[in-house]
């Protein structure tokens, strides 16, 4: 029989083990332990510890001149499924100011062929699971979640109100809504809300057979609204499939959804930060690698009352606006007033090397940036190394001894 002392020691040991186990399980349940703290201001400093250095480098590259403004923007993502979750992650990693997520579904194991969600999250609501992961990736992003179906009367008013007051400071509307839903009803609900609120949004979709998708920028009154072209829903062979809902009978691929989410967020960044051309419609057909783009004008006979009102507003606005003058951007020439040392730059590249011949084998619109210089035959201009009998070790020792 063990003594009291032995038993006490045993209890102590077990207590320690229990404490260790407990601390392990809490870190597992709450992945916020080893994450990072909030960062007050985006810095362009190039250090390993700066999560924004590569994004701010876009400024140095001359692509975006106001990247840090991304923190002032608020984006609503409706539908946090195969496209929406990836979209939300991309925006989070880009450091968007605020994300508002809407979804009423739960994470299921059947979702695991797509990106973002993980098996241990099954059973959790999608918005809750997404919020946890996203705020761990980037705690600077304000994430608001709404776990409900926007198409029902009980929730639609709240949805509208959230959009109307969803800006960073809460005094204005969200900057953009991204529709990542999988059915016609929800798209029409977003469309109705946006036409009524005069809110710009981008619709996205992946076909039920998983091999095509699209994004479409909708500016109420200016471009076609989602309800402007109802025959699309009925017509055969057009994007009809992209409008079907993605239920248990639909196929899905992480690739197509990732591509569409990428196109969607790229367009969103261009729209928000004002660089490049913002596309109004971009299709993606995976089987042919075909990316059609087009402009869609609003339908004057649209059955949506607010769409027709917005169209009238837009025409009025166009009529009242003076013609826009094209402002040419001039690149400032760098001038140096003093040059005491008479320093000048000498270009080492022969300009002829930069000119390339037209290559007939290339697709139209593509050219080589330079031609390979013709290999010179015969005598080299500079001396070449000779042959040696010395061993490798000798050579190494020789170099070292120099």
């Amino acid at each position: 029989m063990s003594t009291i002392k032995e038993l006490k020691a045993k209890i102590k040991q077990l207590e320690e083990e229990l404490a260790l186990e407990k601390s392990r399980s809490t870190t597992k349940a709450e992945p916020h332990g080893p994450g990072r703290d909030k960062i007050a201001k985006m810095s362009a400093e190039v250090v390993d510890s700066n999560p924004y250095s590569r994004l701010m480098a876009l400024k140095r590259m001359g692509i975006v001149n106001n990247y840090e403004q991304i923190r002032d923007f608020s984006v609503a993502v409706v539908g946090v499924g195969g496209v929406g979750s990836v979209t939300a992650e991309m925006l989070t990693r880009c450091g968007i100011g605020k994300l508002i997520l809407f979804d009423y579904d739960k994470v299921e194991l059947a979702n695991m062929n797509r990106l973002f969600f993980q098996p241990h999250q099954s059973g959790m609501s999608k918005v809750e699971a997404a919020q946890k992961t996203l705020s761990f990736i980037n705690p600077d992003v304000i994430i608001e979640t709404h776990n409900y179906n926007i198409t029902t009367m009980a929730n639609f008013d709240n949805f509208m109100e959230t959009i109307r007051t969803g800006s960073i400071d809460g005094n204005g509307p969200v900057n953009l809504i991204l529709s990542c839903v999988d059915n016609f009803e929800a798209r029409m609900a977003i469309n109705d809300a946006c036409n009524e609120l005069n809110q710009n949004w981008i619709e996205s979709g992946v076909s039920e057979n998983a091999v095509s998708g699209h994004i479409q920028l909708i500016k109420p009154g200016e471009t076609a609204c989602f309800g402007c072209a109802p025959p699309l829903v009925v017509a055969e062979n057009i994007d009809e499939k992209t409008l079907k809902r993605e239920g248990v009978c639909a196929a899905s691929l992480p690739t197509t959804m990732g591509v569409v989410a990428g196109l969607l967020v790229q367009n969103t960044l261009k729209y928000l930060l004002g660089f490049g051309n913002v596309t109004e419609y971009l299709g993606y057909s995976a089987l042919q690698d075909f990316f059609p783009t087009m402009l869609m004008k609003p339908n004057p006979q649209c059955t949506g009352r607010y769409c027709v009102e917005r169209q009238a507003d837009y025409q009025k606005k166009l009529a009242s606006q003076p013609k826009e003058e094209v402002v040419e951007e001039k690149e400032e020439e760098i001038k140096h007033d003093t040059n005491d040392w008479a320093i000048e730059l000498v270009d080492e590249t022969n300009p002829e090397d930069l000119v390339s011949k037209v290559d007939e084998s290339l697709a139209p619109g593509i050219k080589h940036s330079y031609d390979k210089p013709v290999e010179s035959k015969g005598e080299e201009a500079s001396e070449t190394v000779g042959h040696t009998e010395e061993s490798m070790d000798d050579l190494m020792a020789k170099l070292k001894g120099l």
Partner: protein
Amino acid sequence: MVDAATKKTLSGIPLLKTKAGPRDKDLWPTRLKEEYLSLIKYVENNKAADNDWFRLESSKDGTRWFGKCWHIQDLLKYEFEIEFDIPVTYPATSPEIALPELDGKTAKMYRGGKICLTDHFKPLWAKNVPKFGIGHAMALGLGPWLAVEIPDLISKGLVRHKDEKDGEDK
């Protein structure tokens, strides 16, 4: 797409006149009345033709509907609960009729037991906005779905008659 029998059924369901959804405070009560009138007429027709197959009722504001539908096969009656919401976009989009107890039993169903209406019904609905109402959704949406799916589910043993189930329990 629509056969003669369905056409006859369809012609017996009064068409609606008011284009209004639940968010149109002024006109929705009118539309809701029309829905009820149309449904009542349809159920009466069914009874007269000895083809009574569903009952529906709604919440007071008419945005939430529930009831029962039944399918008769080999002299046995199989009964299922129905439920659906009237979406804010109604009548531009049709109601999404759900049979929750069949959720997960067939591929022609979405999560929560919403029946798959895409191919056989949605184009028809889209062409007939706002004349079609809940009665038409039942006749052209749920009706054909039940006629195809239930015999299949019974043959696969996924749906069993309630007496049969009771017998096993005892």
